């Protein structure tokens, strides 16, 4: 369970998130809203990559401020730009990266990497240099690198950006099949139509909280 208590955030002078409180417990949560409305900032607060300038964020009772490492063990994060997510020069090494931080055995790592590659249709690229991949291929590697860690909550910031239909469906399916709680920031409204809950942000404020169908209508209203 995620709890925001009296949270707001500013970068320097600029208030990018106005004060709000919130609890999240649903399995599929969508975050939508205009460009620059504060969505990415909002989700970065959840795994402690950002610490709120006021208020507190708790994940399963852990304060992101004091227990960032613990929180990040529970919360996986797939970033907007896959180039910045890929840490290792070779695809299979990159998938192994997070697992190594967990101090798993070599065999266990190799086994999980293989499964992870297969799950995302990446087996044929296992030995490929990551910088050689096309945009869509990189995106799939980034997603695989996080889901392989089997976190309890996974945040996706624009996961279907740059993907073709086949890969989009693959990602949509992956998200829908996840055991874990998923929070998805996206402009791809189809992707979240079946979700349990949707939040709409606008100009730094949480302006709607409800079912996706209504949230999308609200959002479309905002967009004029």
């Amino acid at each position: 369970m995620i709890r925001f208590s009296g949270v707001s955030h500013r970068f320097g002078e600029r208030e990018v998130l106005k004060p709000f409180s919130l609890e999240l417990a649903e399995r599929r949560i969508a975050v939508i809203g205009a460009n620059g409305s504060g969505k990415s900032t909002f989700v970065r607060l959840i795994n402690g990559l950002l610490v709120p300038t006021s208020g507190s964020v708790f994940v399963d009772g852990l304060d992101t401020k004091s227990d960032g490492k613990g929180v990040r063990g529970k919360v996986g994060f797939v970033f907007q730009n896959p180039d910045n997510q890929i840490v290792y020069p070779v695809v299979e090494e990159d998938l192994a990266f997070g697992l190594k931080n967990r101090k798993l055995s070599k065999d266990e790592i190799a086994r999980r990497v293989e499964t992870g590659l297969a799950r995302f249709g990446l087996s044929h690229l296992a030995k490929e240099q990551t910088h050689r991949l096309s945009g869509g291929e990189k995106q799939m590697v980034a997603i695989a690198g996080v889901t392989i860690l089997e976190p309890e909550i996974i945040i996706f910031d624009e996961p279907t950006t740059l993907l073709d239909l086949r890969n989009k469906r693959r990602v949509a399916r992956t998200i829908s099949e996840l055991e874990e709680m998923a929070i998805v920031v996206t402009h791809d409204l189809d992707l979240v139509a079946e979700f349990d809950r949707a939040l709409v942000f606008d100009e730094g404020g949480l302006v709607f909280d409800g079912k996706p169908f209504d949230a999308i209508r609200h959002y479309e209203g905002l967009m004029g």
Partner: protein
Amino acid sequence: MISAYRPGTSPIHRLAAGPKMAALALAGTGLFFVTGLAGTALALAVAIALYFVAGLTLRDIWQVLRPLLIVMLLLVLAHAWLNGWEAAFAMGMRLAALVLLAGLVTLTTPSSAIMAAIETGLQPLAKLGVDVEKISLALSLALRFIPLIASVGAEVREAQRARGLDGSLVALAVPLLVRTLKMGEDIADAIDARGFGSTRK
């Protein structure tokens, strides 16, 4: 560009990276004490022979030596002028042998094995309180970043060219740096998000 590795199954390929690099360091130091014509010629012959043992060809030898050819030529000439031909040839052959041996290690060892060997070599330092995990992350990241920076550079240049500016290196430096730094920040986030380290401020 990063890896000159030629896959193979020769005894030299099969030798572990650590011992190979240690042998290279020893040979490199040892060669410093070999000054005569006969000694250096022998060293050079051994180095060349090892290439054939590794299943490499004359072409590989040429490719290893080529970038250094001009340097060696100039050095030999300067040396000959100062100390006479014999000393000059000896020095030239010693240098060529050194370069060939170093090249042999690079050609027969994948860079990931070199990295792993460095990491193993660093292990004793852990006892002295050095954070080996961080060092090995830094090593891998540097390798990942070389093509990334090169492609950022190419992309920034491409974008500049697409917008009408051809080939100004100074105009390239600032955006390249700023983009690279921003990228670094994002990558640090991604690394932490995948469970590395604990400190964060």
